[in-house]
Protein backbone atom coordinates (compact mmCIF):
# COMPACT_ATOMS: atom_id res chain seq x y z
CA UNK A 1 0.00 0.00 0.00
CA UNK A 2 1.46 3.36 -1.01
CA UNK A 3 0.91 6.63 0.80
CA UNK A 4 2.38 10.14 0.66
CA UNK A 5 2.46 9.69 -3.05
CA UNK A 6 3.71 12.81 -4.82
CA UNK A 7 4.19 11.95 -8.48
CA UNK A 8 4.62 14.84 -10.89
CA UNK A 9 1.82 13.50 -13.05
CA UNK A 10 -0.66 14.27 -10.26
CA UNK A 11 0.14 17.97 -10.75
CA UNK A 12 -0.66 17.82 -14.46
CA UNK A 13 -2.25 14.51 -15.44
CA UNK A 14 -3.43 15.75 -18.82
CA UNK A 15 -0.20 16.98 -20.34
CA UNK A 16 -1.45 16.60 -23.91
CA UNK A 17 -4.80 18.32 -24.11
CA UNK A 18 -7.84 17.52 -26.24
CA UNK A 19 -6.35 19.72 -28.96
CA UNK A 20 -4.33 16.64 -29.82
CA UNK A 21 -7.66 15.11 -30.64
CA UNK A 22 -8.23 17.77 -33.32
CA UNK A 23 -4.71 17.11 -34.50
CA UNK A 24 -5.42 13.44 -35.06
CA UNK A 25 -8.57 14.37 -36.99
CA UNK A 26 -6.51 16.59 -39.26
CA UNK A 27 -4.27 13.59 -39.91
CA UNK A 28 -7.22 12.18 -41.89
CA UNK A 29 -6.09 14.66 -44.56
CA UNK A 30 -3.15 12.32 -45.15
CA UNK A 31 -5.54 9.42 -45.72
CA UNK A 32 -7.62 11.46 -48.18
CA UNK A 33 -4.43 12.15 -50.12
CA UNK A 34 -3.54 8.44 -49.99
CA UNK A 35 -6.95 7.61 -51.46
CA UNK A 36 -6.53 10.31 -54.13
CA UNK A 37 -3.06 9.02 -55.05
CA UNK A 38 -4.26 5.40 -55.21
CA UNK A 39 -7.26 6.43 -57.32
CA UNK A 40 -4.98 8.31 -59.69
CA UNK A 41 -2.51 5.42 -59.96
CA UNK A 42 -5.17 2.75 -60.45
CA UNK A 43 -7.23 4.83 -62.87
CA UNK A 44 -10.38 4.06 -60.94
CA UNK A 45 -12.50 6.49 -58.94
CA UNK A 46 -11.12 9.38 -61.01
CA UNK A 47 -14.20 11.47 -60.31
CA UNK A 48 -13.36 11.74 -56.63
CA UNK A 49 -9.72 12.77 -57.07
CA UNK A 50 -10.20 16.58 -57.14
CA UNK A 51 -12.41 16.72 -54.06
CA UNK A 52 -10.22 14.27 -52.15
CA UNK A 53 -7.06 16.14 -53.11
CA UNK A 54 -8.39 19.55 -52.09
CA UNK A 55 -9.95 18.30 -48.88
CA UNK A 56 -6.78 16.33 -48.12
CA UNK A 57 -4.43 19.27 -48.75
CA UNK A 58 -6.75 21.59 -46.77
CA UNK A 59 -6.50 19.40 -43.69
CA UNK A 60 -2.95 18.12 -44.09
CA UNK A 61 -1.53 21.63 -44.66
CA UNK A 62 -2.64 22.75 -41.20
CA UNK A 63 -1.95 19.50 -39.36
CA UNK A 64 0.97 20.95 -37.39
CA UNK A 65 -1.19 23.80 -36.10
CA UNK A 66 -3.02 21.14 -34.07
CA UNK A 67 -0.45 20.47 -31.36
CA UNK A 68 0.78 24.07 -31.21
CA UNK A 69 -1.60 24.79 -28.33
CA UNK A 70 -0.02 21.93 -26.39
CA UNK A 71 3.46 23.43 -26.51
CA UNK A 72 4.51 25.26 -23.37
CA UNK A 73 6.81 27.48 -25.48
CA UNK A 74 4.99 27.66 -28.83
CA UNK A 75 7.17 30.55 -30.01
CA UNK A 76 10.06 28.07 -30.17
CA UNK A 77 8.15 25.59 -32.40
CA UNK A 78 10.26 26.40 -35.53
CA UNK A 79 13.20 24.76 -33.72
CA UNK A 80 11.67 21.42 -34.77
CA UNK A 81 12.65 22.30 -38.34
CA UNK A 82 15.83 24.27 -37.71
CA UNK A 83 17.25 22.04 -34.96
CA UNK A 84 15.67 18.61 -35.57
CA UNK A 85 16.85 15.58 -33.65
CA UNK A 86 17.13 13.29 -36.65
CA UNK A 87 20.52 11.66 -36.20
CA UNK A 88 21.76 9.84 -33.09
CA UNK A 89 24.85 11.25 -31.38
CA UNK A 90 26.56 10.51 -28.07
CA UNK A 91 24.71 13.39 -26.38
CA UNK A 92 21.43 12.76 -28.18
CA UNK A 93 21.07 9.02 -28.82
CA UNK A 94 18.11 7.78 -30.84
CA UNK A 95 15.86 9.62 -33.26
CA UNK A 96 12.84 11.73 -32.40
CA UNK A 97 9.70 10.47 -34.11
CA UNK A 98 8.22 13.96 -33.81
CA UNK A 99 11.16 15.56 -35.62
CA UNK A 100 11.10 12.79 -38.24
CA UNK A 101 7.38 13.26 -38.86
CA UNK A 102 7.72 17.04 -39.06
CA UNK A 103 10.23 16.54 -41.87
CA UNK A 104 7.99 13.91 -43.47
CA UNK A 105 5.09 16.39 -43.29
CA UNK A 106 7.05 19.01 -45.17
CA UNK A 107 8.05 16.55 -47.89
CA UNK A 108 4.53 15.06 -48.15
CA UNK A 109 2.90 18.48 -48.32
CA UNK A 110 5.24 19.71 -51.07
CA UNK A 111 4.65 16.48 -53.04
CA UNK A 112 0.88 16.78 -52.54
CA UNK A 113 0.89 20.36 -53.82
CA UNK A 114 2.99 19.31 -56.83
CA UNK A 115 0.56 16.41 -57.42
CA UNK A 116 -2.40 18.80 -57.29
CA UNK A 117 -0.76 21.34 -59.59
CA UNK A 118 0.16 18.65 -62.11
CA UNK A 119 -3.29 17.10 -62.16
CA UNK A 120 -4.92 20.52 -62.46
CA UNK A 121 -2.37 21.96 -64.91
CA UNK A 122 -4.44 21.70 -68.09
CA UNK A 123 -7.57 22.80 -66.28
CA UNK A 124 -5.65 25.85 -65.02
CA UNK A 125 -4.58 26.67 -68.58
CA UNK A 126 -8.19 26.51 -69.75
CA UNK A 127 -9.37 28.56 -66.79
CA UNK A 128 -6.71 31.19 -67.54
CA UNK A 129 -8.25 31.71 -70.98
CA UNK A 130 -11.54 32.86 -69.51
CA UNK A 131 -10.26 34.66 -66.40
CA UNK A 132 -9.13 38.21 -65.87
CA UNK A 133 -6.83 40.06 -63.48
CA UNK A 134 -5.21 38.22 -60.57
CA UNK A 135 -7.12 34.99 -61.24
CA UNK A 136 -5.75 34.91 -64.79
CA UNK A 137 -2.18 35.34 -63.51
CA UNK A 138 -2.71 32.65 -60.88
CA UNK A 139 -4.14 30.17 -63.37
CA UNK A 140 -1.33 30.90 -65.81
CA UNK A 141 1.18 30.09 -63.08
CA UNK A 142 -0.72 26.97 -62.02
CA UNK A 143 -0.86 25.68 -65.61
CA UNK A 144 2.92 25.01 -65.47
CA UNK A 145 3.07 25.62 -69.20
CA UNK A 146 0.68 22.78 -70.04
CA UNK A 147 -1.29 24.24 -72.90
CA UNK A 148 -2.47 21.18 -74.80
CA UNK A 149 -3.95 17.73 -74.19
CA UNK A 150 -0.72 16.20 -75.55
CA UNK A 151 1.40 18.02 -73.01
CA UNK A 152 -1.06 17.00 -70.29
CA UNK A 153 -0.52 13.35 -71.30
CA UNK A 154 3.17 13.73 -70.52
CA UNK A 155 2.44 15.53 -67.26
CA UNK A 156 0.24 12.64 -66.15
CA UNK A 157 3.28 10.36 -66.10
CA UNK A 158 5.10 12.77 -63.79
CA UNK A 159 1.98 13.07 -61.62
CA UNK A 160 1.92 9.28 -61.26
CA UNK A 161 5.55 9.27 -60.14
CA UNK A 162 4.77 11.99 -57.60
CA UNK A 163 1.74 10.01 -56.39
CA UNK A 164 3.99 6.99 -55.76
CA UNK A 165 6.50 9.16 -53.86
CA UNK A 166 3.74 10.65 -51.70
CA UNK A 167 2.44 7.33 -50.44
CA UNK A 168 5.16 6.29 -47.95
CA UNK A 169 5.27 9.72 -46.27
CA UNK A 170 1.48 9.94 -46.05
CA UNK A 171 1.22 6.38 -44.72
CA UNK A 172 3.73 7.26 -42.00
CA UNK A 173 1.45 10.14 -41.05
CA UNK A 174 -1.56 7.83 -40.99
CA UNK A 175 -0.01 5.87 -38.13
CA UNK A 176 2.13 8.61 -36.57
CA UNK A 177 0.36 9.58 -33.33
CA UNK A 178 -0.21 5.92 -32.48
CA UNK A 179 3.43 5.08 -33.23
CA UNK A 180 4.55 7.91 -30.97
CA UNK A 181 2.26 6.76 -28.16
CA UNK A 182 3.38 3.16 -28.32
CA UNK A 183 7.11 3.67 -29.01
CA UNK A 184 8.18 6.90 -27.37
CA UNK A 185 6.04 7.26 -24.27
CA UNK A 186 5.84 5.26 -21.08
CA UNK A 187 2.09 5.46 -20.59
CA UNK A 188 1.12 1.93 -19.49
CA UNK A 189 -2.14 1.90 -21.48
CA UNK A 190 -0.53 3.10 -24.70
CA UNK A 191 2.40 0.73 -24.36
CA UNK A 192 0.12 -2.24 -23.89
CA UNK A 193 -2.16 -1.17 -26.79
CA UNK A 194 -0.48 -3.46 -29.31
CA UNK A 195 -3.12 -2.87 -32.00
CA UNK A 196 -3.04 0.91 -31.67
CA UNK A 197 -1.10 1.73 -34.91
CA UNK A 198 -3.26 -0.48 -37.13
CA UNK A 199 -6.44 0.71 -35.38
CA UNK A 200 -5.35 4.29 -35.86
CA UNK A 201 -4.61 3.75 -39.54
CA UNK A 202 -8.06 2.22 -40.14
CA UNK A 203 -9.67 4.88 -37.97
CA UNK A 204 -8.23 7.76 -39.99
CA UNK A 205 -9.65 6.14 -43.16
CA UNK A 206 -13.06 6.08 -41.48
CA UNK A 207 -12.79 9.81 -40.67
CA UNK A 208 -11.42 10.61 -44.13
CA UNK A 209 -14.22 8.82 -45.98
CA UNK A 210 -16.91 10.14 -43.60
CA UNK A 211 -15.65 13.66 -44.14
CA UNK A 212 -15.47 13.18 -47.90
CA UNK A 213 -19.02 11.82 -48.07
CA UNK A 214 -20.44 14.63 -45.96
CA UNK A 215 -18.77 17.33 -48.08
CA UNK A 216 -19.76 15.54 -51.30
CA UNK A 217 -23.34 15.24 -50.08
CA UNK A 218 -23.57 18.92 -49.17
CA UNK A 219 -21.95 19.95 -52.45
CA UNK A 220 -23.89 17.67 -54.82
CA UNK A 221 -27.13 17.45 -52.87
CA UNK A 222 -29.83 16.15 -55.22
CA UNK A 223 -27.42 14.89 -57.86
CA UNK A 224 -25.31 12.30 -56.10
CA UNK A 225 -23.52 9.96 -58.47
CA UNK A 226 -23.58 6.32 -57.51
CA UNK A 227 -20.26 5.55 -59.18
CA UNK A 228 -18.67 8.10 -56.82
CA UNK A 229 -20.60 7.28 -53.69
CA UNK A 230 -20.64 3.48 -53.80
CA UNK A 231 -16.86 2.80 -53.81
CA UNK A 232 -16.26 5.37 -51.05
CA UNK A 233 -19.06 3.85 -48.99
CA UNK A 234 -17.49 0.41 -49.43
CA UNK A 235 -14.11 1.72 -48.21
CA UNK A 236 -15.89 3.39 -45.31
CA UNK A 237 -17.80 0.23 -44.41
CA UNK A 238 -14.59 -1.83 -44.46
CA UNK A 239 -12.82 0.77 -42.29
CA UNK A 240 -15.66 0.94 -39.76
CA UNK A 241 -15.85 -2.82 -39.45
CA UNK A 242 -12.05 -3.04 -39.09
CA UNK A 243 -11.89 -0.47 -36.27
CA UNK A 244 -14.79 -2.14 -34.43
CA UNK A 245 -13.13 -5.56 -34.77
CA UNK A 246 -9.67 -4.28 -33.78
CA UNK A 247 -11.12 -2.52 -30.73
CA UNK A 248 -12.86 -5.71 -29.62
CA UNK A 249 -9.73 -7.75 -30.26
CA UNK A 250 -7.61 -5.36 -28.18
CA UNK A 251 -10.04 -5.68 -25.27
CA UNK A 252 -9.83 -9.48 -25.53
CA UNK A 253 -6.02 -9.29 -25.58
CA UNK A 254 -5.93 -7.18 -22.43
CA UNK A 255 -8.25 -9.55 -20.62
CA UNK A 256 -6.15 -12.59 -21.52
CA UNK A 257 -2.77 -10.99 -20.78
CA UNK A 258 -2.97 -10.56 -17.02
CA UNK A 259 -5.43 -9.53 -14.30
CA UNK A 260 -3.23 -6.50 -13.57
CA UNK A 261 -3.48 -5.27 -17.17
CA UNK A 262 -7.22 -5.87 -17.24
CA UNK A 263 -7.58 -3.87 -14.03
CA UNK A 264 -5.38 -1.04 -15.31
CA UNK A 265 -7.37 -0.53 -18.54
CA UNK A 266 -10.75 -0.84 -16.82
CA UNK A 267 -11.49 2.94 -17.16
CA UNK A 268 -11.12 2.66 -20.95
CA UNK A 269 -13.52 -0.22 -21.47
CA UNK A 270 -16.94 1.56 -21.33
CA UNK A 271 -16.06 3.94 -24.18
CA UNK A 272 -14.56 1.07 -26.17
CA UNK A 273 -17.99 -0.59 -26.14
CA UNK A 274 -19.50 2.69 -27.37
CA UNK A 275 -16.91 2.84 -30.18
CA UNK A 276 -17.69 -0.72 -31.27
CA UNK A 277 -21.43 0.00 -31.21
CA UNK A 278 -21.19 3.25 -33.19
CA UNK A 279 -18.83 1.86 -35.82
CA UNK A 280 -20.90 -1.27 -36.33
CA UNK A 281 -23.90 1.02 -36.80
CA UNK A 282 -21.89 3.05 -39.29
CA UNK A 283 -20.99 -0.16 -41.12
CA UNK A 284 -24.65 -1.19 -41.46
CA UNK A 285 -25.71 2.35 -42.42
CA UNK A 286 -23.03 2.33 -45.15
CA UNK A 287 -24.61 -0.78 -46.65
CA UNK A 288 -28.01 0.93 -46.51
CA UNK A 289 -26.58 4.10 -48.08
CA UNK A 290 -25.24 2.15 -51.06
CA UNK A 291 -28.88 1.48 -51.91
CA UNK A 292 -30.29 4.75 -50.52
CA UNK A 293 -27.62 7.49 -50.92
CA UNK A 294 -29.88 10.02 -49.19
CA UNK A 295 -28.85 8.43 -45.88
CA UNK A 296 -25.19 9.39 -46.36
CA UNK A 297 -25.22 12.17 -43.72
CA UNK A 298 -26.31 9.61 -41.12
CA UNK A 299 -23.36 7.36 -42.09
CA UNK A 300 -20.91 10.26 -41.75
CA UNK A 301 -22.27 11.60 -38.49
CA UNK A 302 -22.44 8.19 -36.79
CA UNK A 303 -18.92 7.35 -37.98
CA UNK A 304 -17.57 10.68 -36.76
CA UNK A 305 -19.24 10.19 -33.39
CA UNK A 306 -17.57 6.76 -33.20
CA UNK A 307 -14.13 8.01 -34.15
CA UNK A 308 -14.44 11.08 -31.88
CA UNK A 309 -15.25 8.76 -29.00
CA UNK A 310 -12.37 6.47 -29.93
CA UNK A 311 -9.84 9.31 -30.09
CA UNK A 312 -11.09 10.80 -26.82
CA UNK A 313 -10.62 7.43 -25.16
CA UNK A 314 -7.18 6.84 -26.68
CA UNK A 315 -5.79 10.32 -26.11
CA UNK A 316 -7.52 11.76 -23.07
CA UNK A 317 -8.64 8.79 -20.98
CA UNK A 318 -5.51 6.70 -21.54
CA UNK A 319 -3.37 9.65 -20.43
CA UNK A 320 -5.25 9.75 -17.15
CA UNK A 321 -3.94 6.32 -16.18
CA UNK A 322 -0.90 6.87 -13.96
CA UNK A 323 2.53 5.50 -14.85
CA UNK A 324 2.24 2.92 -12.11
CA UNK A 325 -1.07 1.78 -13.60
CA UNK A 326 -2.52 2.01 -10.09
CA UNK A 327 -4.44 5.28 -10.34
CA UNK A 328 -6.87 7.01 -12.72
CA UNK A 329 -6.70 10.78 -12.49
CA UNK A 330 -9.56 13.20 -12.94
CA UNK A 331 -9.31 15.29 -16.12
CA UNK A 332 -8.65 18.97 -15.52
CA UNK A 333 -9.60 20.80 -18.68
CA UNK A 334 -9.01 24.51 -19.09
CA UNK A 335 -11.99 26.70 -20.00
CA UNK A 336 -11.00 27.28 -23.60
CA UNK A 337 -10.29 23.70 -24.58
CA UNK A 338 -13.27 23.39 -26.93
CA UNK A 339 -12.35 26.51 -28.90
CA UNK A 340 -8.70 25.49 -28.84
CA UNK A 341 -9.72 22.12 -30.32
CA UNK A 342 -12.10 23.52 -32.92
CA UNK A 343 -9.68 26.21 -34.20
CA UNK A 344 -7.27 23.95 -36.13
CA UNK A 345 -10.18 22.12 -37.76
CA UNK A 346 -11.77 25.44 -38.72
CA UNK A 347 -8.46 26.48 -40.27
CA UNK A 348 -8.40 23.25 -42.30
CA UNK A 349 -11.94 23.92 -43.53
CA UNK A 350 -10.93 27.49 -44.44
CA UNK A 351 -7.98 26.30 -46.52
CA UNK A 352 -10.26 23.79 -48.26
CA UNK A 353 -12.84 26.49 -49.07
CA UNK A 354 -10.08 28.70 -50.48
CA UNK A 355 -8.78 25.85 -52.65
CA UNK A 356 -12.29 24.96 -53.81
CA UNK A 357 -12.70 28.54 -55.10
CA UNK A 358 -9.57 28.18 -57.22
CA UNK A 359 -9.88 24.58 -58.35
CA UNK A 360 -12.82 22.42 -59.50
CA UNK A 361 -14.09 19.72 -57.18
CA UNK A 362 -15.14 17.43 -60.00
CA UNK A 363 -13.06 15.56 -62.51
CA UNK A 364 -12.21 16.97 -65.91
CA UNK A 365 -10.95 13.98 -67.89
CA UNK A 366 -7.80 14.89 -69.82
CA UNK A 367 -8.26 18.45 -68.80
CA UNK A 368 -11.70 18.88 -70.33
Amino acid sequence: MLEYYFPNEAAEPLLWHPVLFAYTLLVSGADLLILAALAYLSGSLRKVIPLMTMLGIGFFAVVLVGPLADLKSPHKAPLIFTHPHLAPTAANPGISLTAFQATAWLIALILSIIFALLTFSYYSHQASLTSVGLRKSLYQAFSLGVTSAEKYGAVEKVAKAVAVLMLPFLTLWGVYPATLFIMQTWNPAWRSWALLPVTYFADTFVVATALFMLVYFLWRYGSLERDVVTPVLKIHAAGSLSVAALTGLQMAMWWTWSPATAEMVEPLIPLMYVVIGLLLLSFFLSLVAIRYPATIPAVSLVAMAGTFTNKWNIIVNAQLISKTGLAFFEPELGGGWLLETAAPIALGVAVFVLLSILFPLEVRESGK
Partner: protein
Amino acid sequence: MNEVSRRGFLGAVSALMMLPAVSAAPHTESGKRYAMLIDVDKCFGCMACVVACAAENNVPLGSFRTWIEQLVKPDGTRIFVPKQCNHCEDPPCVPPCPTGATYKTADGLVLVNDELCIGCGACVKSCPYGARYSNPVKGVADKCTFCDHRLAAGLLPACVEACPTGARVFGPLHEDNELSKIVRSRPVQVLKPHTGAEPQIYYISLPDEVNR
Protein backbone atom coordinates in the same frame (compact mmCIF):
# COMPACT_ATOMS: atom_id res chain seq x y z
CA MET B 1 32.57 34.67 -60.93
CA ASN B 2 29.97 31.98 -61.13
CA GLU B 3 31.89 29.94 -58.52
CA VAL B 4 32.10 32.92 -56.20
CA SER B 5 28.37 33.51 -56.52
CA ARG B 6 27.59 29.92 -55.67
CA ARG B 7 29.90 30.07 -52.67
CA GLY B 8 28.32 33.35 -51.64
CA PHE B 9 24.89 31.82 -51.98
CA LEU B 10 25.86 28.78 -49.91
CA GLY B 11 27.38 31.07 -47.31
CA ALA B 12 24.20 33.08 -47.12
CA VAL B 13 22.13 29.91 -46.78
CA SER B 14 24.45 28.63 -44.05
CA ALA B 15 24.19 31.93 -42.25
CA LEU B 16 20.40 31.72 -42.44
CA MET B 17 20.50 28.17 -41.12
CA MET B 18 22.60 29.35 -38.20
CA LEU B 19 20.19 32.13 -37.26
CA PRO B 20 17.97 30.05 -35.03
CA ALA B 21 20.92 28.20 -33.51
CA VAL B 22 21.17 28.48 -29.77
CA SER B 23 24.05 28.10 -27.43
CA ALA B 24 24.76 24.80 -25.72
CA ALA B 25 23.89 24.32 -22.06
CA PRO B 26 26.45 25.67 -19.59
CA HIS B 27 27.24 22.25 -18.11
CA THR B 28 30.95 21.49 -17.79
CA GLU B 29 31.90 17.84 -18.16
CA SER B 30 34.35 16.19 -15.80
CA GLY B 31 34.64 12.84 -17.57
CA LYS B 32 33.26 11.06 -14.50
CA ARG B 33 30.17 8.87 -14.31
CA TYR B 34 28.04 10.27 -11.52
CA ALA B 35 25.55 8.09 -9.67
CA MET B 36 23.61 8.05 -6.41
CA LEU B 37 22.90 5.39 -3.84
CA ILE B 38 19.81 5.53 -1.61
CA ASP B 39 19.65 3.34 1.47
CA VAL B 40 15.93 2.81 2.06
CA ASP B 41 16.64 1.48 5.56
CA LYS B 42 18.11 4.86 6.54
CA CYS B 43 15.27 7.05 5.19
CA PHE B 44 12.61 8.01 7.71
CA GLY B 45 10.63 10.33 5.46
CA CYS B 46 11.58 13.70 6.98
CA MET B 47 11.32 15.35 3.51
CA ALA B 48 14.47 17.42 4.14
CA CYS B 49 15.74 16.37 0.70
CA VAL B 50 12.45 17.37 -0.97
CA VAL B 51 12.53 20.80 0.67
CA ALA B 52 16.24 21.34 0.05
CA CYS B 53 15.82 20.46 -3.63
CA ALA B 54 12.80 22.72 -4.06
CA ALA B 55 14.61 25.62 -2.41
CA GLU B 56 17.88 25.08 -4.27
CA ASN B 57 16.28 24.70 -7.69
CA ASN B 58 13.21 26.92 -7.49
CA VAL B 59 10.88 23.98 -8.08
CA PRO B 60 7.31 25.24 -8.64
CA LEU B 61 4.57 24.25 -6.21
CA GLY B 62 2.95 20.92 -7.03
CA SER B 63 5.95 19.60 -8.97
CA PHE B 64 8.91 17.65 -7.64
CA ARG B 65 12.47 17.02 -8.71
CA THR B 66 12.64 14.55 -5.85
CA TRP B 67 9.84 13.12 -3.75
CA ILE B 68 9.30 10.39 -1.17
CA GLU B 69 6.88 7.52 -1.46
CA GLN B 70 5.72 5.70 1.62
CA LEU B 71 4.95 2.01 1.71
CA VAL B 72 2.87 0.63 4.56
CA LYS B 73 3.34 -3.10 4.97
CA PRO B 74 0.50 -5.33 6.31
CA ASP B 75 2.21 -5.43 9.72
CA GLY B 76 2.16 -1.63 9.87
CA THR B 77 5.84 -1.15 9.12
CA ARG B 78 6.51 2.00 7.12
CA ILE B 79 9.12 2.15 4.41
CA PHE B 80 10.15 5.41 2.75
CA VAL B 81 11.43 5.40 -0.81
CA PRO B 82 12.95 8.63 -2.14
CA LYS B 83 12.69 8.97 -5.92
CA GLN B 84 13.99 11.36 -8.59
CA CYS B 85 15.48 11.33 -12.10
CA ASN B 86 17.59 8.21 -12.47
CA HIS B 87 20.05 9.77 -14.94
CA CYS B 88 19.78 6.54 -16.93
CA GLU B 89 22.61 5.11 -18.96
CA ASP B 90 20.12 4.58 -21.80
CA PRO B 91 17.60 7.33 -21.02
CA PRO B 92 14.17 6.81 -22.66
CA CYS B 93 13.52 10.56 -22.43
CA VAL B 94 16.34 11.59 -24.79
CA PRO B 95 15.31 10.05 -28.15
CA PRO B 96 11.77 11.53 -28.26
CA CYS B 97 12.99 15.12 -27.83
CA PRO B 98 12.32 16.71 -31.25
CA THR B 99 14.97 19.44 -30.92
CA GLY B 100 17.67 17.59 -28.99
CA ALA B 101 17.09 19.84 -25.97
CA THR B 102 17.26 16.82 -23.67
CA TYR B 103 20.73 15.41 -23.79
CA LYS B 104 23.19 13.20 -21.96
CA THR B 105 26.56 14.50 -20.84
CA ALA B 106 29.80 12.51 -20.89
CA ASP B 107 29.64 12.25 -17.10
CA GLY B 108 26.25 10.61 -17.25
CA LEU B 109 23.96 13.48 -16.36
CA VAL B 110 20.72 13.78 -18.29
CA LEU B 111 20.00 17.51 -18.66
CA VAL B 112 17.67 19.90 -20.47
CA ASN B 113 18.84 22.84 -22.53
CA ASP B 114 16.14 25.40 -21.75
CA GLU B 115 16.92 27.43 -24.85
CA LEU B 116 16.15 24.51 -27.14
CA CYS B 117 13.19 23.06 -25.22
CA ILE B 118 9.85 23.86 -26.88
CA GLY B 119 7.81 22.35 -24.02
CA CYS B 120 6.17 19.60 -26.09
CA GLY B 121 6.15 17.18 -23.16
CA ALA B 122 7.44 14.22 -25.17
CA CYS B 123 10.20 13.61 -22.60
CA VAL B 124 7.74 13.93 -19.71
CA LYS B 125 5.58 11.24 -21.29
CA SER B 126 8.53 8.99 -22.05
CA CYS B 127 10.08 8.88 -18.57
CA PRO B 128 9.02 5.59 -16.97
CA TYR B 129 9.58 7.05 -13.50
CA GLY B 130 7.46 10.21 -13.72
CA ALA B 131 10.60 12.14 -12.81
CA ARG B 132 9.99 14.93 -15.32
CA TYR B 133 7.40 17.68 -15.30
CA SER B 134 6.48 20.71 -17.34
CA ASN B 135 7.75 23.80 -15.56
CA PRO B 136 4.85 26.25 -15.80
CA VAL B 137 7.09 29.23 -15.05
CA LYS B 138 9.82 28.53 -17.58
CA GLY B 139 7.65 26.77 -20.18
CA VAL B 140 10.12 23.93 -20.52
CA ALA B 141 10.60 20.38 -19.27
CA ASP B 142 12.25 20.22 -15.87
CA LYS B 143 13.83 17.53 -13.71
CA CYS B 144 16.67 16.70 -11.32
CA THR B 145 20.07 17.77 -12.62
CA PHE B 146 22.06 16.18 -9.77
CA CYS B 147 22.52 19.90 -8.92
CA ASP B 148 25.10 20.22 -11.69
CA HIS B 149 25.64 23.88 -10.77
CA ARG B 150 26.73 22.73 -7.30
CA LEU B 151 28.91 19.94 -8.73
CA ALA B 152 30.72 22.56 -10.81
CA ALA B 153 31.48 24.40 -7.57
CA GLY B 154 32.73 21.21 -5.88
CA LEU B 155 29.58 20.78 -3.76
CA LEU B 156 27.25 17.85 -3.28
CA PRO B 157 23.66 17.86 -4.59
CA ALA B 158 21.34 19.72 -2.20
CA CYS B 159 19.32 16.59 -1.35
CA VAL B 160 22.46 14.66 -0.36
CA GLU B 161 23.74 17.47 1.82
CA ALA B 162 20.36 17.90 3.53
CA CYS B 163 19.79 14.23 4.40
CA PRO B 164 20.20 13.90 8.20
CA THR B 165 20.84 10.14 8.16
CA GLY B 166 23.16 9.90 5.19
CA ALA B 167 20.61 7.79 3.30
CA ARG B 168 21.78 9.38 0.06
CA VAL B 169 25.34 8.82 -1.11
CA PHE B 170 26.59 10.60 -4.22
CA GLY B 171 29.74 10.41 -6.27
CA PRO B 172 31.43 9.15 -9.39
CA LEU B 173 31.18 5.41 -10.03
CA HIS B 174 34.27 3.28 -10.68
CA GLU B 175 36.40 5.38 -8.37
CA ASP B 176 37.71 4.80 -4.89
CA ASN B 177 34.86 6.32 -2.90
CA GLU B 178 32.04 5.31 -0.55
CA LEU B 179 29.47 4.99 -3.34
CA SER B 180 31.58 2.63 -5.44
CA LYS B 181 32.51 0.55 -2.42
CA ILE B 182 28.88 0.04 -1.40
CA VAL B 183 27.71 -0.70 -4.97
CA ARG B 184 30.50 -3.29 -5.29
CA SER B 185 30.09 -4.91 -1.89
CA ARG B 186 26.35 -4.93 -1.19
CA PRO B 187 23.32 -6.13 -3.16
CA VAL B 188 21.77 -3.09 -4.82
CA GLN B 189 18.57 -2.67 -6.82
CA VAL B 190 17.30 -0.17 -9.37
CA LEU B 191 13.78 1.00 -10.21
CA LYS B 192 11.95 -0.70 -13.10
CA PRO B 193 14.88 -2.71 -14.46
CA HIS B 194 12.55 -4.14 -17.14
CA THR B 195 12.62 -0.81 -18.99
CA GLY B 196 16.23 -1.39 -20.02
CA ALA B 197 17.02 2.22 -19.14
CA GLU B 198 19.88 1.24 -16.79
CA PRO B 199 19.11 3.74 -14.01
CA GLN B 200 22.04 5.24 -12.13
CA ILE B 201 20.22 5.64 -8.83
CA TYR B 202 20.99 2.50 -6.85
CA TYR B 203 18.93 1.39 -3.88
CA ILE B 204 19.62 -0.72 -0.85
CA SER B 205 16.64 -2.66 0.61
CA LEU B 206 14.21 -1.56 -2.08
CA PRO B 207 10.85 -3.35 -1.56
CA ASP B 208 9.53 -5.22 -4.60
CA GLU B 209 6.12 -3.54 -4.22
CA VAL B 210 7.62 -0.15 -5.13
CA ASN B 211 8.80 -1.31 -8.51
CA ARG B 212 5.68 -0.67 -10.58
